[in-house]
């Protein structure tokens, strides 16, 4: 009954569904339906009837496969675009000003003129948006019209992507792109294996295996039709998870992430697959994931807003002065207003108006209107156009950052990417860099280095073997097969030799199992490619040398499998049911009964396999911390005495410490036999857990615990994680630049320290403070001890006092500490202050510290250390550490990482940088900037960061000045017009001033100006300090600029005033003079500050002046403008030119002198470096000239 009730409701929405499936209102209805439905069944699964799209889509309203990434259609473009544009405050300001100007008493400018700036920015933005959207439309159209084979009335026929619906069965041929999220039913492989490349989704180029369920795969392979029901979760954006189950032939079996292929992926190495569509169009995981990352705002911009507030105050004061003056003037001339020739309050014409007042609304209203109209006249005091200018400038800066060939990584063919356009200048002020280790500092290309097998250490004497199984490998030769690996691996001769002994004693068996585990216990897929070229050289006998490429999700696993192969245990085939390993030429087929994948809780992975002789074994590998606790307590070796086992264990442990101190990543390998009873119990539990729809991972974890116990230790591996190029140099430069580099890693303490040493983060002369407590008290003691020992003062006493006042209760403990620390500071400071400190802290301690009131102690300690290394940290803790700094200081933070575990940190930091490396694209997707290598960070910060900061800082100040000088000039004039808000400039010139006359040079300078060459900046990282000291933009500079502005505006106004005092000059000539004077003035002002002249700068600067003249000539050539022919009259008089020259000289003189004095007596670092640079260049030029002369 309930069901029927539901379906009738759906029919109403289902009818209209045909036309527009993404219709919003229907979505809402859909959602409410779901809500209702979720009350009926707890899990609220999505039901897909295989090969029955009608029934599937009848039940629920699923979106079709048509995608729309475009925002607008032709009809909605105008209203929607305008609506979106007016979300910005800047545009609202323009709109308000334009609206004010439409009121009759306020019409300061002509109606059309006043709309110009608004229309201009609206048009520019609309064209930009429209173009982008048109491109999206085009790509959508292309995407939607792609074709796929869909099962229609019993046959696979071509259908357009956009018409595909949930529930339909689709066939994909090799190398095709998958049109929607599908559950695999069958593949060209009888076992139902398919390989896909997820490049478009997560950027990983390796192949991933997906399986069709055995039950359906066989049916499909035989060509039978399938009908069944899939229950799966509602659409979500997690691309690494999928839970569902399938009812098929009265059977019910689980579906997981490995059974689904996602839109955007490509089918590889598989002839064809058949699948059923579960999520289509906008509901696919790829589409759900395409949301933009949250936008950040730059620090300089927030300072700029503070100054804008000041400018608003100025604006208000000026308007108030005008309004008040107007009031007083009106009051004084009250009796004369009626007849005064230039005011004439009343009509004195015969007709309907006679005697009425004309545009006079009483004193109070006149004052009010005067205030409003002065806002209109002075509107550009608030530099709204600056926001648009800054956007353009950042766009240009990004272009040059992207095009920088020094930041192009040829290894991965990845360019620098700017994903966020708002924070370019923040790059110049970074104080803290939080770096991930794996994949960021290191390459994440793993190399198998060391092995500890059965308590014996191998790998100290490595030799390169180009042909792994060449030497004395009789058995391999006999079989006539050689496996060639794509990567070269160094092997240990001793171990190699040992492996070719017979399986006789324990140690040998352990070694055998050790390598079996390496080869079997993983999710790596071997891909065979026949390579005939290499076969002819050495081994003419064996014509088919096959190259194996191991594709896996984890580089560690790839390294291990390759290593196993090098030692003669080659994984050559993997399906969901079995694996084939080539053991020194013998093919060993092992049935895989179950596989417990790696998860971050267990930190291990296990696989249950059945040997051909029906032995069942569980092979486990995992992190040492999680493995030693589940080893058999009384290890018997393999059937031998206790001391032996203990020895092995101790030896292995010591090897592990040795490995990690060398910076290797370690894994412990163990195995044990399963008895039939255990196996049965486990199988039961495994079956149930893996088919359950809810809490599957927890159930699986419990199941894993059944067999992951009492294990026999086989050995341990050490994998080297190679440092990326230039990491130590980069870190050193960053440190010289005054940037603190913190490394946050998931590795353990020893590994972290060793990597820290190898990348010169830590130096031997540093005092290492190690915090690794296991309880709150322990952590507190460690922190306090460290603080006392090294005399760390609270970073900010004032801050502290405030805090104490605020939450006195919670901080009672800290007060005495602070005192003692001060005392000890006095005592020990002498000895300790010189040695740099390094803080090493582990994740466990961070749990206690970050959640408790110890945070501040940590902050004090950490900020006084030169280096901070955090090891064993979880992703959220990384963000917590970034937040620790971000919330307590004003310093800028930058987080750099490459993996999914760095996403939270990247989003938390002021600037997030993603490394587009091995671990997928999630970090890149969340980042503001992305690049291929860690070492580019040096260039990004020291060069581009510096430049961008200098440019934007100057740009902001200059824009403030440029607008204020203009407004002030108008203001002085208004004081001479009986406060009547008259502008001597023509309306058009007033509007063009900030849009056309002066805008281009600022943009060009903001993009192209360079104060120092990149060589100098890289050579002297200390120059980066200018950003830390906020040298190019601060309140002090703002006020100096404003005073300069005041002077310049006075010069601008008074020189023409005195020159043309008591002359016959008319208002338009005066206005024309002022327009030209102010444009030339601000452009020469800019020219004075340009540091690097290139052709385009010349064109922009001088071109602006020319354009201004051209505009004025055009405006003065129209007879119906009152200013007709003004410029031609003016240009004929010498006074005009002399006046302009005098204005420029006098206005810029103080600035020039100030600059000269400052540069002579108090030069900044940058100026010194610049002078040195120029001198060097000159000397170089001289040298080359001399050289030419002599030759």
């Amino acid at each position, binding site marked *: 009954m309930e069901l029927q009730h539901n379906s009738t409701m759906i029919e109403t929405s289902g009818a209209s569904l045909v036309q527009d499936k993404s219709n919003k209102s229907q979505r809402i209805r859909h959602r409410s339906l779901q809500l209702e439905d979720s009350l009926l069944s707890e899990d609220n699964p999505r039901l897909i009837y295989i090969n029955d799209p009608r029934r599937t889509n009848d039940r629920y309203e699923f979106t079709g496969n048509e995608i729309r990434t475009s925002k607008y259609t032709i009809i909605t473009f105008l209203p929607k675009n305008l609506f979106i544009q007016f979300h910005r405050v800047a545009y609202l300001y323009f709109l308000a000003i334009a609206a004010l100007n439409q009121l009759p008493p306020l019409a300061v400018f002509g109606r059309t003129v006043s709309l110009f700036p608004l229309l201009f920015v609206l048009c520019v933005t609309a064209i930009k948006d429209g173009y982008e959207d048109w491109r999206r439309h085009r790509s959508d159209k292309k995407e939607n019209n792609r074709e796929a084979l869909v099962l229609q009335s019993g046959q696979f026929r071509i259908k357009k992507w956009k018409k595909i619906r949930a529930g339909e069965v689709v066939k994909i041929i090799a190398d095709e792109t998958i049109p929607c999220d599908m559950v695999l039913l069958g593949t060209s492989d009888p076992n139902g294996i398919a390989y896909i490349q997820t490049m478009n989704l997560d950027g990983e180029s390796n192949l991933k295996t997906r399986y069709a369920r055995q039950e359906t795969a066989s049916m499909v392979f035989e060509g039978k039709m399938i009908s069944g029901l899939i229950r799966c979760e509602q659409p979500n954006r997690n691309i690494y998870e999928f839970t569902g189950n399938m009812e098929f032939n009265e059977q019910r079996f689980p579906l997981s992430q490995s059974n689904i292929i996602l839109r955007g992926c490509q089918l590889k190495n598989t002839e064809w697959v058949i699948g059923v569509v579960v999520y289509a169009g906008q509901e696919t995981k790829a589409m759900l994931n395409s949301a933009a990352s949250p936008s950040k705002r730059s620090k300089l911009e927030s300072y700029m807003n503070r100054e804008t507030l000041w400018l608003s105050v100025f604006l208000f004061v000026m308007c108030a002065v005008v309004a008040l003056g107007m009031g007083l003037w009106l009051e004084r001339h009250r009796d004369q207003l009626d007849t005064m020739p230039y005011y004439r309050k009343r009509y004195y014409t015969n007709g309907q108006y006679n005697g009425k007042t004309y545009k006079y609304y009483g004193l109070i209203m006149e004052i009010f209107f005067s205030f409003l109209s002065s806002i209109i006249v002075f509107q550009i005091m608030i530099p709204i156009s600056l926001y648009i200018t800054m956007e353009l400038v950042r766009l240009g800066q990004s272009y040059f950052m992207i095009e920088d060939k020094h930041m192009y990584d040829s290894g991965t063919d990845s360019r620098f990417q700017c994903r966020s356009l708002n924070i370019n200048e923040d790059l110049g002020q970074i104080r803290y860099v939080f770096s991930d280790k794996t994949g960021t500092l290191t390459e994440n290309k793993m190399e198998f280095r060391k092995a500890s097998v059965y308590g014996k250490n191998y790998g100290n004497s490595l030799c390169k073997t180009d042909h792994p199984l060449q030497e004395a490998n009789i058995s391999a030769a006999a079989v006539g097969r050689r496996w060639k690996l794509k990567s070269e691996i160094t092997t240990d001769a001793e171990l190699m030799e040992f492996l070719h002994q017979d399986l006789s004693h324990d140690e040998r068996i352990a070694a055998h199992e050790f390598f079996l585990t390496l080869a079997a216990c993983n999710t790596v897929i071997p891909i065979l490619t026949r390579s005939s070229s290499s076969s002819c050289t050495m081994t003419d006998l064996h014509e088919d040398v096959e190259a194996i490429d191991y594709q896996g999700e984890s580089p560690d696993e790839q390294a291990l499998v390759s290593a196993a192969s090098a030692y003669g245990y080659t994984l050559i085939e993997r399906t969901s049911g079995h694996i084939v390993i080539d053991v020194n030429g013998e093919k060993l087929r092992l049935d895989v009964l179950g596989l417990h994948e790696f998860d971050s809780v267990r930190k291990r992975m296990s696989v249950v396999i059945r040997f051909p002789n029906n032995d069942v074994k569980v092979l486990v590998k995992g992190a040492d911390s999680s493995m030693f606790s589940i080893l058999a307590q009384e290890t018997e070796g393999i059937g031998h005495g206790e001391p032996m086992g203990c020895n092995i264990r101790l030896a292995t442990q010591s090897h592990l410490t040795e490995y990690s101190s060398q910076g290797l990543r370690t894994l412990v390998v163990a195995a044990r036999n399963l008895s039939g009873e255990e196996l049965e119990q486990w199988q039961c539990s495994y079956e149930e857990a893996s088919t359950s729809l809810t809490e599957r991972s927890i159930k699986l974890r419990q199941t894993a615990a059944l067999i992951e116990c009492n294990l026999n230790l086989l050995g341990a591996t050490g994998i080297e994680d190679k440092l990326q190029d230039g990491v130590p140099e980069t870190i050193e430069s960053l440190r010289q630049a005054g940037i603190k580099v913190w490394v946050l890693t998931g590795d353990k303490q020893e590994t972290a320290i060793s990597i820290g040493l190898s990348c010169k983060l830590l130096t031997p002369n540093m005092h290492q403070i190690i915090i690794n407590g296991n309880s709150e008290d322990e952590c507190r003691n460690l922190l306090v001890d460290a603080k006392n020992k090294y005399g760390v003062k609270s970073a900010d006493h004032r801050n502290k006092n405030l805090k104490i006042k605020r939450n006195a209760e919670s901080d009672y403990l800290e007060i005495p500490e602070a005192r003692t620390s001060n005392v000890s500071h006095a005592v020990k400071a002498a000895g300790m202050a010189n040695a740099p400190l390094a803080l090493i802290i582990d994740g466990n301690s961070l749990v206690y510290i970050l959640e408790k009131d110890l945070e501040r102690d940590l902050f004090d300690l950490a900020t006084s250390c030169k280096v901070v290394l955090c090891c064993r940290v979880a992703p959220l803790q990384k963000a917590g550490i970034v937040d620790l700094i971000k919330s307590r200081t004003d310093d800028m933070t930058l987080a750099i990482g490459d993996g999914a575990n760095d996403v939270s940190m990247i989003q938390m930091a002021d600037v997030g940088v993603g490394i587009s490396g091995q671990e997928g694209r999630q970090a890149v997707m969340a980042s503001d900037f992305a690049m291929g290598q860690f070492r580019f960070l040096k260039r990004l910060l020291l060069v581009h960061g510096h430049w961008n900061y200098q440019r934007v800082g100057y740009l902001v100040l200059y824009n403030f000045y440029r607008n204020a000088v203009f407004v002030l000039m108008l203001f002085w004039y208004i004081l001479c017009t009986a406060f009547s808000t008259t502008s001597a400039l023509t309306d058009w010139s007033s509007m063009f001033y900030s849009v056309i006359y002066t805008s281009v040079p600022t943009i060009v300078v903001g993009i192209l100006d360079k104060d120092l060459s990149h060589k100098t900046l890289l050579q002297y990282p200390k120059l980066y300090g200018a950003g830390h000291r906020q040298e190019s933009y601060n309140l002090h500079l703002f006020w100096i600029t404003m005073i300069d502005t005041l002077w310049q505006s006075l010069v601008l106004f008074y020189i023409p005033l005195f020159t043309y005092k008591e002359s016959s000059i008319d208002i338009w000539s005066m206005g024309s003079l002022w327009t030209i004077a102010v444009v030339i003035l601000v452009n020469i002002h800019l020219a004075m500050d340009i540091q690097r002249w290139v052709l385009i700068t010349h064109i922009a600067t001088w071109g602006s002046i020319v354009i201004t003249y051209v505009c004025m000539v055009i405006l003065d050539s129209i007879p119906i403008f009152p200013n007709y022919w003004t410029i031609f009259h003016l240009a004929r008089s010498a006074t005009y030119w002399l006046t302009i020259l005098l204005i420029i000289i006098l206005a810029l003189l103080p600035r020039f002198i100030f600059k000269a004095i400052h540069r002579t007596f108090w030069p900044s670092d940058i100026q010194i470096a610049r002078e*040195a640079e120029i001198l060097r260049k000159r000397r170089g030029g001289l040298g080359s000239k001399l050289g030419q002369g002599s030759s």
Partner: protein
Amino acid sequence: MEAPIYIYYQLDNYYQNHRRYVKSRDDRQLLYGLKYNDTSSCKPEQSNNGLPIVPCGLIAWSLFNDTFTFVREAAQLRVNRKNIAWKSDRDHKFGKHVYPFNFQNGTLIGGGKLDPSIPLSDQEDLIVWMRTAALPSFRKLYGRIEEDLEADDIIVVNILNNYNTYSFGGKKKLILSTSSWLGGKNDFLGMAYIAVGSSCIFISLVFMLLHVKNPRSYANG
């Protein structure tokens, strides 16, 4: 004084740059005459008795109408009142076929009247007047005396004081001036150049001395 001697009248405290005043004109009407009838910008002086005024607006309405005659030794000096307005204004801005219409017929007379038989392009006083001044004290060209005046010449000026400046407390002045390549007599520009120039020289000398005394060493730049 050598010819030509320019005659200016000067008005003080007359805000020709007041917004209400500056805007109260219609340039299209001046060019096209009655053919153009949207004269709302001319308020409050746009129509009278329901008929449009040509030229409309406060500026035209308040046309200056004092007249001056100059007598030297009982002989009247010839004052050339032609070509006192910009040629561009006469030729292109004020219509050749636009004649004053319905002008100064309101209840309040603001200033001079115009001969309805002379087109606007020839009403040079009006054209000069309508180039509104930039500042509240301004001069406007009245005419030229095209004879040299010798020292100790006594010139009697007869002024017909028509224009009402009492309504706003203004002043009138009459100026006779010759013109150089820099325009009328104004010392400001010259003085300013001398001052700024000499201070520049002084400053540059100071800097030069500083540089010679302790030149910047670049050794450790």
